[in-house]
C-alpha cells in the first residue's frame, strides 16, 4: 500500500487515530483551525454516509443483526462510499484532508471481533495510506475515565457487547477498549504511526502536531489562491 503522495495525488491526507477519549478529535480540530487561519486549502472530512448505506448500518445496529463479518463488511462499504465520493475527489483537487479515524480503526476493531487480520487489511487495500497518521496514545485508564465519567449510554456494538465479554456494558467497554489499544500498538510500526503522548497538555501536543505537519507537508503549496495543475 502507498500513500497519496507516493501515488502522485496533489492533495495530502492526515489522519488521527486512538481510543475514544484520547483527545484526538480536539487535536485534529486545532490543527484544522491552524491550517485554515493560514489560508490553506483544508477540508475536515466529517462523514455523512449516503442515506442508503447509513440506513442499512443503523438497521443492523438497532436490531443487533450484525456478526463480526457483516459488521466489518458494512463498515467497509460505508468507508468505500466515503473514499470514492469524498476523499479521492478532494485529494485530486489538491486539498489537505483531515480525517478523524481512517482504516486503522477498522483494522483494530474488526480484529478484536475475531475477523482475520489479513482478510480485513486485504479488503481495505483499495484505499491509499494517509501521508501522516497521528496516534494518540493515552493510558487505558485515562481514556476510559474521560468517556465513562459522564456515565454515557453505551451502545451495544460500541461497548463490544456482541463479544459477550461481560453482561455489564461498562465492564464490557473496558475490556473491549483494552483489546483495541493492544491492536493499535501492534500495528503502530507497520503503518509508521506518529505516536503522541496523549497524557500531555493539549497545547504541548498541538505544538508537536503542528511541527510535524509543517516538516512533512509543503504547506505553501496549499495556499487557497493557487489552482491545481492536472
Amino acid at each position, binding site marked *: 500500500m502507498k500513500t497519496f503522495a507516493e501515488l502522485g495525488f496533489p492533495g495530502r491526507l492526515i489522519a488521527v487515530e486512538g481510543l475514544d477519549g484520547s483527545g484526538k478529535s480536539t487535536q485534529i480540530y486545532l490543527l484544522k483551525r491552524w491550517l485554515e487561519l493560514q489560508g490553506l486549502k483544508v477540508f475536515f472530512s466529517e462523514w455523512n454516509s*449516503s442515506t*442508503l*448505506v447509513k*440506513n*442499512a448500518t443503523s*438497521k*443492523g445496529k438497532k436490531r443487533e*443483526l*450484525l*456478526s*463480526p*463479518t*457483516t459488521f466489518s*463488511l*458494512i463498515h*467497509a*462499504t460505508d468507508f*468505500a*462510499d466515503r*473514499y*470514492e*465520493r469524498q476523499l479521492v475527489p478532494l485529494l485530486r483537487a489538491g486539498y489537505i484532508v483531515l480525517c478523524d479515524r481512517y482504516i486503522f480503526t477498522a483494522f483494530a476493531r474488526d480484529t478484536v*471481533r*475475531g*475477523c*482475520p487480520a*489479513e*482478510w480485513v487489511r*486485504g*479488503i481495505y*487495500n*483499495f484505499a491509499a495510506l494517509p501521508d501522516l497518521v497521528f496516534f494518540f496514545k493515552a493510558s487505558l485508564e485515562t481514556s476510559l475515565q474521560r468517556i465513562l465519567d459522564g456515565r454515557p449510554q453505551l451502545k451495544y456494538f460500541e461497548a463490544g457487547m456482541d463479544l459477550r465479554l461481560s453482561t455489564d456494558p461498562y465492564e464490557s467497554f473496558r475490556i473491549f477498549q483494552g483489546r483495541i489499544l493492544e491492536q493499535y500498538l501492534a500495528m503502530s510500526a507497520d503503518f509508521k504511526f506518529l505516536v503522541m503522548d496523549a497524557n500531555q497538555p493539549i497545547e504541548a501536543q498541538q505544538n508537536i502536531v503542528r511541527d510535524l505537519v509543517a516538516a512533512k507537508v509543503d504547506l505553501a503549496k496549499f495556499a487557497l489562491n493557487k489552482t491545481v495543475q492536472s
Partner: protein
Amino acid sequence: MKNARHLAAKKNRRCIVPRNKPRRFYGQGVPGVDLTKLAGKLIVVEGADGSGRSTQIARLVEWLEGSGHATVQVGLKRSTLVSEELDQAQQGNILSRTTLSLFYATDFADQLENIILPGLRAGFMVLADRYIYTLMVRDMVRGIDLAWLKNLYGIALVPDAVFYLNVPPEELVLRNFSKNHSLDFWESGMDLGLSRDMFDSFLQYQARVALKFKELQGTYGFTMVDGRQSPEEINGELRRRIESVLEA
C-alpha cells in the same frame, strides 16, 4: 410427467442419507464456524438472467423434497440486512464500484451466516440461485482486482456442486425479450458505457461476463451445462450429478 415422478417417489421409499464430507472455506472463512457440523449439502446454480436458473431450481426442489430431503433457498439481494438498500442503490445507480461491490458482499455474508450455514447445520439441502462467482465476475468486468475479490470472498464455503448454465448472449437476448419485453439496465452492463445502444451493450457485456466465468472455472471448477438443451434434459443432468454428491 407428473405421474411418472409420483411413481418414482413410490418406488424409492427409502431416502438416501447423505454422508458428512470434510468441508472448507475458500479462504479464512467466517469466525466461529465448526466445519465438521455442516451435515447438509450446498448446491449452486449459476448463469445469466434468462439462462433458466429459477426453472431448474424449482424442479430440483420438487425432486429433492420428493426424495425426502429438506431444502432451503438463497439468492443474491435477499438478505434481511441490506436487500432493500441494494435494490434502491441499483434503481439510482449512485454508488461507485467498490462501494457497490462491498454492499453485495455484505448481503452475501448475511445470508451465509443466517441461512446457508444454519441450514447446512440442520442437515438441509441449500440451493443457491447464484453465489459468489456472479458477484466476482460482475466486479471483474468492472475492473476490480481478482486478488482483492478472492480475499473478500474467502469467507465463502466451498459448495458441494456448482452448475453454470451456459447460454450464448444471442440466445439470452431473445429469452430476456420474451420474459420481460425489454432488457435490464444492469444485465446489459449499461453502467460501463460500452455502447449507448442497449442491444449492442447487452451482447458485449454478456460476452465479457461469459469470458470471465470461463476464467474463474479454472480455479473454482464449476460444471458447465449447455443451457440450450431442453429444461428436462438439463434437469436430468443436474439430478444425476446431485445424486452422485448425495451418494458419495
